[in-house]
């Protein structure tokens, strides 16, 4: 009798094992399906994110005729040099590239240096009116001051700074958001004791800032500087309003002017090359700094 029962149990065991394994296979199948769907979705978004870049890069090497008759391809063409010749004879793109580079570099350096200087001043010293002045910074961080561009234009006209790069560069000395960010950054990266001991060693105040504080604030300054560079490189509205002569034009202005040119329809390859010239430097900067930047965007999300 006992044996029968045991046998029966064994049989049931085998049966349920089979069930379980069948069930497991089903789960596996389902998992595989879900994984496929998820990665397909991610792949689609990835394609949508990069395909305009891809089209720009490929088409900048193809001639206009091929682009309008053959549509999209994944193979680059051979007309890069020809496109470059057409583009540069029609548009002022190379001088504009260097104008943009000059403005963006100076904006980056000025906003980085003076924001660090201001944040340091607020963090280290206790002076009269300090809280009030920092309150002003906080308030104006919320004020959309670019809304005042009409007053800015009139004011620059009176100062004789219209059509100069100076009018686009100088405001970066007062980069409100950067000062705010760096002041939070410095309070976690710089100890007062360090400054105190440097003072005892007889170092001057500015010397302490340059030799001790600035290097310690380096990563924070670098992050904000990269954003400043991208913002300045991409800036269109204020450049368009301030600058008027051909020799002063920045890259986004020249890109925008392509729309009204005859080559817009006739030599699309040259147009796409223009887009590529505006995109590539930023993407290169980003690829090198991406880890850094995204960590900082993320950190901002957690604090905010």
């Amino acid at each position, binding site marked *: 009798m006992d044996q029968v029962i045991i046998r029966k149990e064994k049989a049931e065991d085998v049966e349920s094992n089979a069930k379980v394994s069948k069930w497991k296979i089903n789960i596996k199948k389902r998992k595989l399906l879900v994984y496929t769907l998820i990665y397909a979705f991610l792949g689609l978004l990835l394609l949508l994110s990069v395909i305009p870049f891809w089209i720009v890069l490929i088409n900048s090497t193809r001639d206009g005729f091929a682009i309008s008759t053959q549509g999209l391809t994944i193979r680059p063409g051979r007309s890069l040099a020809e496109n470059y010749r057409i583009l540069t004879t029609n548009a002022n793109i190379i001088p504009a590239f260097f104008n943009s580079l000059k403005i963006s570099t100076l904006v980056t350096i000025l906003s980085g240096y*003076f924001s660090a200087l201001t944040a340091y001043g607020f963090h280290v010293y206790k002076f009269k009116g300090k809280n009030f002045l920092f309150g002003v910074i906080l308030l104006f961080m919320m004020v959309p001051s670019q809304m005042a561009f009409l*007053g800015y234009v009139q004011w620059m006209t009176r100062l004789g700074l219209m059509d100069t790069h100076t009018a686009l560069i100088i405001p970066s000395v007062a980069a409100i958001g950067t000062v705010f960010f760096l002041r939070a950054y410095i309070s976690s990266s710089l100890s007062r004791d360090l400054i105190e001991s440097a003072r005892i060693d007889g170092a001057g105040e500015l010397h302490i800032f340059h030799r001790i504080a600035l290097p310690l604030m380096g990563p924070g300054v670098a992050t904000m500087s990269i954003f400043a560079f991208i913002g300045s490189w*991409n800036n269109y509205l204020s450049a368009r309003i301030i600058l008027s002569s051909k020799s002063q034009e920045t890259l986004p202005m020249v890109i925008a002017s392509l729309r009204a040119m005859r080559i817009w329809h006739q030599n699309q390859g040259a147009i796409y090359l223009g887009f590529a010239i505006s995109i590539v430097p930023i993407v290169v900067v980003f690829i090198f700094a991406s880890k850094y930047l995204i960590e900082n965007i993320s950190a901002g999300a957690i604090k905010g």
Partner: protein
Amino acid sequence: MKNINDKAGYFFITPFFLVFLLFNLYPILFTIYLSMTRYRGFGNMVFIGADNFKLIFRDPNVVNAFMNTIRIWGVNIFFQIFLALLLVMVFSDLEYKIKGLKFFRVIFYLPNLIAAATIALIFAKLLDRDYGVVNQLLFSVGWIDRSIGWLTRPLLAQMSVSGIQTWMWFGNSFILFMASVQAVNKEIFEAARIDGAGRLQILRHITLPSIKPILMYVIITGLIGGLQLFDIPFLITDGRGFPAGSLNTMIVYIYNMAFTYNNYGYASALSFALFLLIFMFTIIFALVTNRVEIKEYFRDRNERKAMNKTMNKAMEKAMPGGAPGMKGSEK
């Protein structure tokens, strides 16, 4: 402790405030002054008081521009948040471990880097009715048999701009949302799952509450950015808000009012009104997201005041005549 070097603080902050006053504050005040004048951008300036502001309320273009902005923003923000949330759900799932978060973050952020001016022209090419790649593709797949005027039909043009904005910003929102979800202790998710919570329950009770502040941030900054939208609607068509004024956003209108129609005073009044509107949204946002901190601040301040009072009293008792330099709220 007073430090003899503390005066140097002024030296450090002077360049900032000099430029701030001259290039930031003064233009704002100047714009406010201009908004009360009749002025063509050159020649005589005639002070006319609040007339320009009265005109704003009778100008149908203002309502039109505002509604355009709301429509473009509304569609954009819906899809932007939907996509970002979907991605957060995918990458924070406990059962399905999806790899490559760091890689995808970089890729999805790429569209945010490009100059809006360049993006406008790229999409003007891609969405062109007769030569555009998008129509060519749809033709070859056989989904359409007639060209679609993505940028020539009013509503479609608005939706195209919404789509471009979504394309530019969903990666940014995703990074922000993901960071706030990752800041939540993983054990909470695990515990919820062990208790038998489904995906939607986890989304509603853990994920969404953890990203609520940043969600507000994305919605409000999206609205503020939307109100300041210029490059794309200006460059993707003819610069006048074509077709049929559907891409006439506030800044495009202000720009044309000042530089095409030379009505500088009215344009200044419009930009000051927009300025106030954006400022209002920002203040509301700041109050809503920081209400806990604000409460804490006032509670702390009252406590500190009470502390100082008792301290000062004790001081006065100990040293009649008071101790100079010990007042105030130094830490």
